[in-house]
């Protein structure tokens, strides 16, 4: 039951975040389109576009701050939220294995009262390696699909 609930809330958070971001980006694109259609002067168009982009960046950063803030076990929840978003972008096997292990490791580090910089470094390193491994995985799958596996093996030798 706990597992189901954890999965549900993680999925809900990811879907929620993706929807909010999509809404903001779509609105910004529509506004920029209208500005380019209705405003004749280049300098005014440029200024209006910059204003829209700046506003979007401020809203996104405020949202990110709100999203990352929590009252209970903030560092672990922050990691869980970041990993939740990363999970949506990488293959399930990599997400389950590497992010799950990292979360378990972080839990142990936080229980041992390790410093905040170490926790941040671990989160950053995990995200970096997960994306590197995803890229590696995708390249391998592409190579297999294109029948290049034999060529790659030969190249390695």
């Amino acid at each position: 039951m706990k597992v189901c609930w954890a999965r549900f809330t993680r999925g809900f958070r990811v879907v929620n975040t993706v929807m909010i971001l999509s809404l903001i980006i779509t609105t910004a694109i529509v506004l920029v389109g209208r500005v380019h259609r209705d405003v004749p002067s280049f300098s005014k168009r440029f200024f209006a576009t910059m204003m829209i982009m700046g506003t979007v960046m401020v809203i996104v950063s405020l949202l990110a701050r709100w999203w990352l803030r929590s009252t209970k076990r903030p560092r672990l929840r922050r990691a869980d939220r970041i990993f939740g978003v990363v999970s949506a972008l990488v293959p399930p096997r990599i997400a389950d294995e590497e992010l799950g292990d990292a979360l378990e490791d972080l839990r142990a580090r936080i229980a041992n009262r390790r410093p905040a910089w170490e926790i941040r470094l671990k989160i950053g390193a995990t995200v970096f390696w997960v994306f590197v491994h995803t890229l590696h995985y995708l390249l391998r799958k592409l190579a297999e699909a294109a029948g290049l596996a034999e060529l790659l093996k030969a190249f390695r030798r």
Partner: protein
Amino acid sequence: MDLPVSARTAVLLALVRGRGFGLELIERVRERTNGAVKLGQGSVYPLLRQLEDEGLLRSFEAEPTPERGGRPRRYYELTGQGRKAALEQRSTLAAILHFAEVK
């Protein structure tokens, strides 16, 4: 400093006594070598997948746990071929150490 053994050998030997998952294997190797061999998350997971592709390991998923945010652990264990390779690596290492002692 160079590693006294390769990451591949360390992982194979760490699995001789039983199955384990990625994080556990990193810890197991570090503990058993008194910190002389430290495997990183950047190298262990691709290595485990590579060894599995080579038929030296097989993996399976355990039940998801809330501690991992509802994600399951992936355990690895040696196949027959993998056990044979690990024992060969162990014999080679033992032979090197014996040679060093005699000389």
